């Protein structure tokens, strides 16, 4: 049964993905640019196309707390937020992962205040890398829809039982309309069975949840949680393969290399930026430059092996961060370097920070990044952390 073609925005694709995943309860608080997700879901609940309860919570902190309550009785919870909202529910993020509640949440990547900015960058989700949530970054609306469905399969896997954050670039993806194939409900139902778990309150077998664990066993419990996230890679790859077999779309699991096999330099990027980078790679390849793109899909668990296998061989690796961890460098750069440091011979690496607060990342920006990388590979020394696309001098 082929899917039904639609022309929708990233937000709408997420709402459709959520509807297909049959959540029991949606608890969400509106925030730009996520609002269309919750508006569509409200329509679906009202028109009966989604048999779910919609909780009008009074804040994002309560959105996550309610979602945890839902999961604690074994029901499937869905929520969505962005930037300030994500930060407001930070306590709940750590809480849910520690309680092993497989909640799925869409996060519209958006700059964090102050100063106020409603446009896209990844400061919000990247500042939450340590909160114990699986994090995937999608490139287009189709991948957004598909990953909401895959997210439940992975998160609810008894070996994983870890909450899952699906990240979409604010506006550039959430509010951009494109062709999306919506898979049929029956196929999705076969792919994504109802949520079954022992990690819940049960009238027949009363449990205590979110208990206190002191120095006697806390270290071991957190090791258990860490290993579940590390081993989630198996489920991620398996679900990606099965999804491809069933729905015809393979995404490559943890990462997706594009023309990296014979590349001299590689640029690592996430989300919609990877899309633009693909176009620049093709163009520069025609001009005879051996450049490649490493699309990082998952940032937690982090694809250490894949980054080493694909990017370890080249002379120079660039990492594009729509983020800056003040006082050091881009957060993705820190993670990629940590992975590459496992290699006996670490390639030269450069960090390209830009696209903050909705600043467009143009093809020219990426082309000049590749040119810089090629020069660095040729021995021209370069500053390790470079802000690109600045519209005023930095008078350093």
């Amino acid at each position, binding site marked *: 049964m082929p899917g039904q073609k639609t022309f929708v925005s990233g937000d709408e694709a997420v709402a459709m993905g959520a509807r297909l995943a049959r959540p*029991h*309860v949606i*608890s969400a608080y509106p925030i730009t640019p996520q609002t269309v997700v919750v508006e569509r879901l409200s329509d679906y609940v009202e028109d009966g196309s989604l048999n*779910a*309860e919609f*909780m*009008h*919570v*009074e*804040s994002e*902190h*309560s*959105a996550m*707390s*309610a*979602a*945890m*309550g*839902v*999961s*604690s*009785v*074994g*029901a499937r*919870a869905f929520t969505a937020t962005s930037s300030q909202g994500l930060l407001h529910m930070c*306590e*709940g993020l750590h*809480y849910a992962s520690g309680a092993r509640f497989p909640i799925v949440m869409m996060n519209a990547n958006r700059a964090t205040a102050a100063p106020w900015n409603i446009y896209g960058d990844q400061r919000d989700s990247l500042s939450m890398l340590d909160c114990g949530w699986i994090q995937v970054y999608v490139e287009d609306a189709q991948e957004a829809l598909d990953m909401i469905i895959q997210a439940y399969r992975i998160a609810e896997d008894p070996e994983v039982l870890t909450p899952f954050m699906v990240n979409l670039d604010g506006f550039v993806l959430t509010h951009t309309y494109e062709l999306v194939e919506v898979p049929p409900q029956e196929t999705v139902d076969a792919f994504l069975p109802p949520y079954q778990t022992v990690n819940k*309150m*049960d*009238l027949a077998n*009363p*449990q*205590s*949840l*979110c*208990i*206190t*664990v*002191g120095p*006697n*066993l806390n270290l071991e419990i957190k090791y258990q949680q860490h290993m579940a996230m590390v081993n989630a890679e198996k489920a991620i790859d398996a679900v990606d393969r099965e999804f491809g077999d069933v729905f015809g779309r393979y995404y490559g699991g943890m990462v997706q290399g594009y023309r990296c096999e014979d590349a001299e330099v590689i640029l690592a990027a996430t989300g919609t930026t990877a899309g633009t980078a693909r176009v620049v790679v093709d163009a520069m390849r025609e001009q005879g430059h051996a450049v490649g793109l490493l699309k990082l899909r998952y940032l937690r668990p982090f694809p250490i092996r894949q980054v080493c296998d694909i990017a370890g061989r080249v002379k120079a690796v660039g990492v594009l961060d729509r983020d800056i961890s003040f006082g050091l460098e881009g957060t993705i750069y820190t993670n990629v370097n940590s992975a590459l440091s496992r290699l006996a011979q670490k390639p030269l690496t450069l960090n390209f920070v830009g696209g903050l607060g909705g600043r467009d990342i143009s093809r020219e920006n990426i082309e000049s990044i590749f040119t810089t990388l090629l020069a660095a590979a040729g021995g021209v020394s370069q500053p390790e952390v470079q802000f690109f696309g600045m519209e005023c001098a930095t008078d350093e």
Partner: protein
Amino acid sequence: MNKTQAKSINARTIDDREFFYGHKACAGCGGSVAVRLALKVLGENTFSVLPANCMSAVGFIYPQMAFSSNAMIAPFPSTAAMLSGVAVGARALGIKGAYSIGFAGDGGTADIGLQALSGAIDRRDPIIYICYDNEAYMNTGIQKSGLTPYGATTTTTPAGKNLPGSVRPKKNMFEIVAAHGIDYAATCSIGYPQDYMKKIQKAAQVEGTAYIHVYASCPTGWGVPTERSVDVAKEAVDCGLWFLAEYENGRFRLNKNPREFKPVKDYLKKQGRFRHLSDRDIETIVQQRDAKWEKMRREWL
């Protein structure tokens, strides 16, 4: 949510099982009386949610689990939000005949948890929210909360040369909740356990959201000997500094309207937290009490 049989609830008809047992609360803890009795009234089919407070801190210390019916700790601001999620999740799963009940303290209700409680009432989620009020943040060592009464010394409102302890009156939680147009709200005291049990049962039969505000003494925080714990909660009502009332169908009702009160001074002087009060402070407290009762009698009778 089906209704418990409407048999009148008392010491003989109450469930003889203990659902909150072997906990690590201080000897004489009033809060544990409130939790224990409520769970016995409601029976085994419950989902309890407690935020960070004494009762959760003493009830879930791995491997000693004192709750033998389903129970869960919520983030501090989230009692009513998480509890709503439980109730709505259970409804979505078609789980019948189970009560979703929250136990938060005074600060957990009137301060950090107020927003979530307001949201739950607004949504009319099918929950029973119990605030056990020991008039300060006791779990963290007796700091002032929004329900700390005027004149009480706490570690953050120390009575000294310049201040008589807390200088603000208790927030009026009962009427704040009622102002939401909640289906049922009541005030109780562990000193009047029969009245408390009856109101818990009534809350369980409510179609919609119910709120119970129960006065629950804290020997440690109030500076009373452990054996007097329940009696001091009773005396609070008898001297008029607390009251037993209900809000239902949009109307208030006073359950107990004593002709004359026991002396406030006796009630206060028994407690370490009030021992410093001057006669003038006590006079202020008596005036505040009389003003409150004058209003209640005028409007609620």
